[in-house]
């Protein structure tokens, strides 16, 4: 591999005047310009979705569309959260410059916890249209669901949801607060504290992420089960969060001139990680499908049967090619990880595919044939808008890069061999 210095590379190499970039790494006036429009778009999207749902599928459709969009934006925070923890755990040096972005994305989980309320309230008010286990008539007809009523009931569901959000908020607050503290004082003991605690926090993260996926998505088909389901949602979340990270970096670098220390070398690495997790997602998805298909047990195949009929088979095929073969083959090329335009293209592509993935997980429980209209678009635009607003709020006037991390220098000097 050649490592000729690109023009961009040489500009980041000039970190001798490191002080100069450190002063211009906040969103500044941009925050105000984005925040309000994002908020308005978000609210408007949800209003449109609600209005359209009132005409077509009613509350049930709105909640399904909302849940899909919610799991979509939530996955960005979860994927980012885990990767920050992994970076601390492994004492990673190269990624210091991208870490703050991920910390900020992850900390959007706090406002998202409020946005989970519509679903929680619906469940608590006895709505059984989304989660059939919450519908007494359905449960009465289904002995298998009766057998797990001690797990799938509205009270225990709520307690667990509160616990998951509590865990995620504690993790993200801990990560961001300490990271910001280090911006003020270059204290290596902060890094040591983060390193020491990230191990147990990953443990908590794994359990909460798994059971959240089981509770919120797997239990939509309350008779169906798969031990790998939590890992599947996690794998998709990693793909989505890296796609979002790459896109945000490129967007902030180009017009706003921010994040200049993030060089092509760092993007190359986040591109590699996106590639790696795309393959991991395919591996997990294949494992799940292959084993259920091969054993051919009716209680398991019914879930895939719903996804292989009534038009869903096309969505499944879109996922196989669009979420794996095409992006993986593109990302194999070095150029697609290093060129801004090409990386942005694959990132947007994967962001779309990640939504299709969640739509494919959730929506076949809503309708036997794909439904995609104003309700779904409105909910998606709404939650993405609110998510962006939350992100801008979280970023506030904080630096978008860690300023005093002891390994900052290592990260600035980093280049692929």
């Amino acid at each position, binding site marked *: 591999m050649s490592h000729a210095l690109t023009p961009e590379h040489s500009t980041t190499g000039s970190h001798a005047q490191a002080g100069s970039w450190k002063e211009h790494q906040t969103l500044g006036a941009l925050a105000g310009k984005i925040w309000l429009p994002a908020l308005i778009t978000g609210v408007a999207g949800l209003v449109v979705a609600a209005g359209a749902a009132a005409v077509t599928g009613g509350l049930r459709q709105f909640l399904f569309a909302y849940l899909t969009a919610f799991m979509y934006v939530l996955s960005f925070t979860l994927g980012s959260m885990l990767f920050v923890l992994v970076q601390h755990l492994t004492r990673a040096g190269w990624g210091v410059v991208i870490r703050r972005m991920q910390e900020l994305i992850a900390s959007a989980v706090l406002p998202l916890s409020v946005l989970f309320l519509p679903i929680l309230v619906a469940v608590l008010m006895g709505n059984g249209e989304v989660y059939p286990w919450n519908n007494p008539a359905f449960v009465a007809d289904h002995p298998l669901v009766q057998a797990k009523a001690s797990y799938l009931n509205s009270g225990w569901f709520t307690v667990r949801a509160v616990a998951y959000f509590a865990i995620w908020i504690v993790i993200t607050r801990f990560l961001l607060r300490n990271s910001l503290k280090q911006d003020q004082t270059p204290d290596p003991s902060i890094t040591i504290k983060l390193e020491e605690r990230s191990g147990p926090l990953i443990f908590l993260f794994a359990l909460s992420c798994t059971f959240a996926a089981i509770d919120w998505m797997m239990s939509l088909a309350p008779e169906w089960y798969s*031990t790998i389901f939590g890992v599947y949602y996690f794998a998709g979340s990693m793909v989505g969060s890296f796609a979002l990270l790459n896109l945000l970096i490129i967007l902030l670098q180009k017009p706003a001139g921010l994040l200049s220390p993030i060089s092509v070398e760092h993007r190359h690495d986040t591109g590699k990680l996106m590639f790696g997790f795309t393959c991991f997602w395919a*591996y997990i998805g294949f*494992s799940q499908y292959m*084993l259920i298909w091969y054993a051919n047990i009716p209680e398991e195949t019914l879930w895939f049967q719903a996804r292989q009929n009534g038009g869903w088979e096309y969505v499944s095929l879109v996922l196989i090619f669009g979420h794996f073969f095409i992006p993986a083959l593109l990302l194999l090329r070095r150029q697609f990880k290093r060129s801004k335009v090409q990386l942005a293209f694959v990132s947007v592509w994967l962001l779309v595919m990640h939504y299709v993935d969640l739509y494919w997980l959730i929506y076949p429980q809503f309708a036997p044939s794909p439904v995609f209209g104003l309700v779904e678009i409105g909910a998606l635009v709404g939650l993405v808008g609110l998510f962006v607003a939350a992100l801008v709020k979280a970023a506030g006037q904080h630096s978008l890069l860690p300023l005093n991390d*002891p390994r900052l220098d290592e990260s600035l000097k980093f280049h692929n061999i």
Partner: protein
Amino acid sequence: MAAISPTMLDVVDIDNTIETPGRRSELVTRNSSYAEITDSVCYAAESPHPPLAWYVAFAISTSLTMMLGLMVTYLLFTGIGVWGNNSPVFWAWDIVNFVFWVGIGHAGTLISAILFLFRQNWRTSINRAAEAMTIFAVVCAGMFPTIHVGRIWVIYYLIPYGPNQHAIWPQFRSPLLWDVFAVSTYATVSLLFWYMGMIPDLATFRDRATTRWKYNLYGLLSLGWTGSARHWHRYERAYLLLAALATPLVLSVHTVVSFDFATSQIPGWHTTIFPPYFVAGAIFGGFGMVVTLLVPARALFGLEHLITLRHMENMNKVILATGTIVGYAYAMEFFIAWYGGNPYEQFAFTNRMFGPYAWAYWTMIACNVISPQVFWFKKCRTSPLVMWIVSIFVNIGMWFERFVIVVISLSRDYLPSSWGYYSPTWVDILTLIGSFGLFTTLFLLFCRFLPIVAMAEVKGVVHQHNHAVGHHEHDAAH
């Protein structure tokens, strides 16, 4: 217990397990120069006699290997009936041993391929030994299904080279056949990777050879390596490519092995998390074995400054992480067995915990999930004695995991009238012990005749580190 090596004299070890953020600790202690690294690695092969402990270990392990030969011969001449396999447990220790050994191999590939792609430089001190271990483990693994087929003289029927000769094709729909392809691919690529990585070091052995036959042998093996810039360029390209090709293999082999079980409908075998769970378990078991081997080996050959406590600590962290992942998979299987509501699946799990084989299940849990938890404490991660004991527990636990999966599920499936209790015969027991003999023999020969640490790669890391912290005394060598 350590042999006297030239590098051990009056040098104090630096504690490189401490890392101050912002300053990377030394991966190699005692401020070793290039010459010292070469000397201390070559010493194991060049000293006129290996340490006494090597002879003792070699005597024991070759005796066990000969016993293995006897057992296999007895089996082939008599039949599979000399083992305990019988209705309803038709797969027993042979398959347990196969999965156990093939899992051990995973640490080598993970270290040489995935840790390479992740730029984990510490892997350079341990990759050679781990890769060697991989090959030897795959040798042991491959033996078990081979002798289990019974009529070994027609084993070539597994190779799909045309029905005109056999009037039959192998069953492509069987995961057992996929295993043949997966394991043989794995063995081939691992061997290539190991050998190719060793070429520069073999050339060093050649250049230092003191006898004609050594010179010729190492010369032949080093393929005319001169160390020219072009050679290095080709070598590094090939290494990167092989690493990228070997990475999917880390996942594929144990995934296919897990398919042997998970594609069936046997309660306790059929569950979707099996592929990644088997891979994590394999890495866990493999690192357990690397620690088991390297704790004595580094002391015996005086390599503590190259395979430092930091390397051992990192491996123990991997053991803790993968052991916990395995614990997660156990918990998830157990939860879904309840959640799924299938009474047979539920029975399979209560039977594991409280049935006639409960002792095996709890041995597995204690060894695999509980024992690695001591590695949350740095004192335990950096104590050779503690890590060696835990690594033995890990080996035991991973063997029992396969026993739990294979034997318990088969012994009690859907039909209570065909339940049974499996007991091994003396042939089973001696064959397993013999396979450890074969593995240890091969590893001891490797320690004595081949470069046990990747000298060239370690030097590269030492150089990088010195460069990063501003020591430039080695630059003259470039």
